[in-house]
């Protein structure tokens, strides 16, 4: 049984999955904001990522930036447990929406 995910956690995980190597906090924020069409706070994204990392669903590493200013970016990647959790959430979602498509899309 994979870990249970809250809605915002699901969105963040999907963004990480989608962004592959480019999953910085800022990029994740942009992706979630675009997909969910709501205001997303970078602080909230990081807080969620911290929690996901504690649960062992994502892993972060520091990558030096090539810019003149220097500094390191934090890049996030899915762990196997994270992959399982989001897959399970997706499965739940698909099963629950089966046959409801006309209903959902009309309203």
């Amino acid at each position, binding site marked *: 049984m994979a870990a249970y995910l809250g809605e915002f956690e699901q969105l963040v995980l999907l963004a990480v999955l989608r962004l592959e190597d480019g999953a*910085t*906090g*800022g*990029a994740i*924020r*942009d992706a979630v904001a675009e997909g969910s069409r709501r205001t997303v*706070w*970078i*602080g*909230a994204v*990081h*807080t969620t990522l911290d929690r996901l990392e504690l649960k062992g669903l994502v892993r972060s590493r*520091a990558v030096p*930036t090539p810019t003149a200013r220097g*500094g*390191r*970016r*934090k890049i996030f990647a899915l762990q196997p447990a994270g992959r399982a959790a989001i897959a399970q959430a997706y499965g739940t979602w698909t099963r629950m929406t089966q046959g409801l498509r006309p209903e959902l899309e009309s309203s």
Partner: protein
Amino acid sequence: MRSAPPTPPAWALRLVEALLPVRDREFLMLDLEDGFVARRARGNRALGWYLVQGLHAAWTRRRPPTLDRESPDIRGGAMGASLLADLRTAWRGLRRQPGLSAAIVLSLGLGIGTASAMYSVVQAVLLAPLPYREPDRLVTVWSKWVAFDRTWLATRDVLDFKAESRSIEDIAMWSSEHVTLTGVGDASRLNAGVVTANTFAVLGVTPLYGRLFTEDEARDAGKAGQTRFAVLSYDLWRATFGADPAIVGRSIRLDGQAVTVLGVMRPRFQLPTDFTEDAPEPTTLWTPLYNDPATADRDDHNFYGAARLRPGVSLGAFNRELATLVAGFANGYRPAMHFTVFAQSIDDDVLGGVGPALRVLLVAVGFLLLIACANAAALLVTRAETRRREWTTRVALGASRARLLRLQLLEGALFALAGGTLGIGLAFLAKRALTAIGPTAIPRAAEITVDWRVMAFMLAVSAGAALLCSLAPAVHAMRLNVVTGLKDGTTNTSASRSRLRLRALLVVTQLSLGMLLLTGAGLMARTLGSMRHIDLGFEPTGVLTARIALPVDRYTRSEDVNRYLDGLAGRLREIPGVEAAGLIRSLPLASTIGDKGLFVEGYTSPPGEHPMGDWQVATPGAVEALGEHLLRGRLFTPSDTARAPMVALVNETMARTYWPGRDPIGRRLRFFGRNAPWVTVVGLVGDVRHNSVTGAVKTKFYLPYAQFSAATGGGPLTTGIVVMRTAVDPMTLAAPLRAAAAAVDPEVPVAGTRPMTEVVDTALTAPRLTSQVLGGFAAVALLLSALGLFSLLVFLVTQRTQEIGIRMAIGASTGAVVRFIFVEGMRVTVLGLTIGLALSAMAARGLANLLYGVSPWDPATWVTAPTVFLAVAALASVIPAFRATRIDPLRALRQV
């Protein structure tokens, strides 16, 4: 070639960097910057987004600060971040003890709110400059002699001052009259200022539209074949002429005559007398007055005067010059009259008696604010006490004392902010209550608003309050003793004893200031009471009053006026419920009454003096309607017609002055300076307080309206006040009165309908304002000090739980425990009471000029106020005392 991607400005980067927590700073800065660049590239607003996201992240990414994390921040010097952290700590501290926090906020809000409301009144009434240019160079000029402390100027005097005074640039004069405006809607009765052409220049005002009249135009305006002019007030122009600028140059009808509108004045312009004289109905248009040197006279005291001082000339210098000038024209004045002319600053003139009252109230509200702050401070010390353990732990773990001090100040600021917010609401409410006390009688009451100046004041007061009330606990925070503090949080350490002393000191402050306010309120309440008990000489309850004015173009002859008055009297008597009704020239306490020179048959005046009398004119029924007292003889009857023998009534003072010890009935008098017929006194009436509630009553006689023209040799009197007496609510007569007046002549306007009780109330505004507001302040102050005492004793009981427990364990009775706490409370109370009484004694002298009929050492006040005070303090002490008896000795002992 592409330019480098734009980045946020350096200040924004630094700000966000300073706010972000160290552990996140590196990544978050880059994340935010990426977002900024992307948004900028898409052409979206990026900087605002950057800052908001940055601030939000700084807030959400702050872990609740714990000691191990907070220290590195301080060493790192990230002031911004730690400030944010402290704010959060302070906020959480506030929420942890909601009851205590609410008490502090309420206390501060009460103080700040009342102070701000009071300030809004003072700002509008005392501080805001009058709507004239350089008002500090503007003075009003008045005559004064034996019978009058302050009365009108004579035309010749004004001309002489203008010609001879070196202190002034110019002097203007004016009077007012009622005119009837027709042709625009219903006929309306307006108060018109009749002003010399230089009045506007002396006051330093210019019109909004059009122009003002010149001296030449003023001179010619009254002459046959010449145009008449008027300047309109802004309010009249808006209300009656639809704010049409094209009114300038057009003709309107005043008293049936064509008058050309020359200009419209700016908003808020009024004559200085409009702020006080008959304030509910200020002059709303101005017509020219010409002071003709050919006819100017030293006896026609009929005009208000205002002068503009030359730059650098003081009021005192002008007054000295006036005295010299008046002495120079002594031939015109009888020395025994002690005639003189004096000037007064326009501010004093406009404010009258309300100024000193407001100043006293402003000081009083300052004390109230201090009490509120002391109360909040005492509560904050309590809070600090309950958190002493937490704080000593913090210090032990490395928190700096400076930081604790800052935390304490931040808490104070948060409290003040909350209190200030509450205060804004209270200020609006209190302001409404204040203006309700004297909507018409406080000069400039309409200008009272809670505006930015009041808000700024409130902000300053809140900041001051925050500093003041967090100071005491903050100083204590600095003195924490880590070792004893950690050893035990509750025992009687020296620190907690000094804290107790500090709290007692704060409570004594509250109690003594509360005592001061209570004494002041007591004295003012006694003043109001004694003013209310003054026999006014008439009975205001159940009387309706209204002004009427006959159009002078149609009522030029005495017979016409008399016919109208008879007709009106007949109609008024028919109204059901009317017990008596009539018309009177001057309403007591609503307008002042002037005097006329007399010949009194058989009376020889001392050399240099001349008999005088205030002249009242009344129709049959008017004196009865007012409820004046007939002492001897009879009042006027319908048979006192123009053709009947001339009759008069006199008041007691007049009878005593001219016929001492003799019966005034049947005596005769006639008017000075004219070939007037003899008038026989037929009735003696009681003295009436006419010009003011507290002023001396002067000699006064009454003539019937019907005989006025014949008795004085002048034209008929065409204005007057309708007075009607009824057993029911007098305002129910308003509609029937208007109907009756319209039935006799629809072109006669009825204005200013109000009950006589309102007239009396208005005359009592200053004492009412002071006593009611001061009473309110005293009640709040008493409540706050009682709460302060109460919480002090509760605190004492918690401090001494062990001691009390031991006493009880070794046999102390309940009574002894109660006595122990109660005596503590009374010790603080008596100290506060003594200081408060000493302060009151000092303040009483300052109050003396506001008092009437009460000595500053009024025994009733000086006994009652401390008694009430002691009773409330005793009540506040008894409850904690009994709470102390519920201490379980076993549990208390276990703590040792």
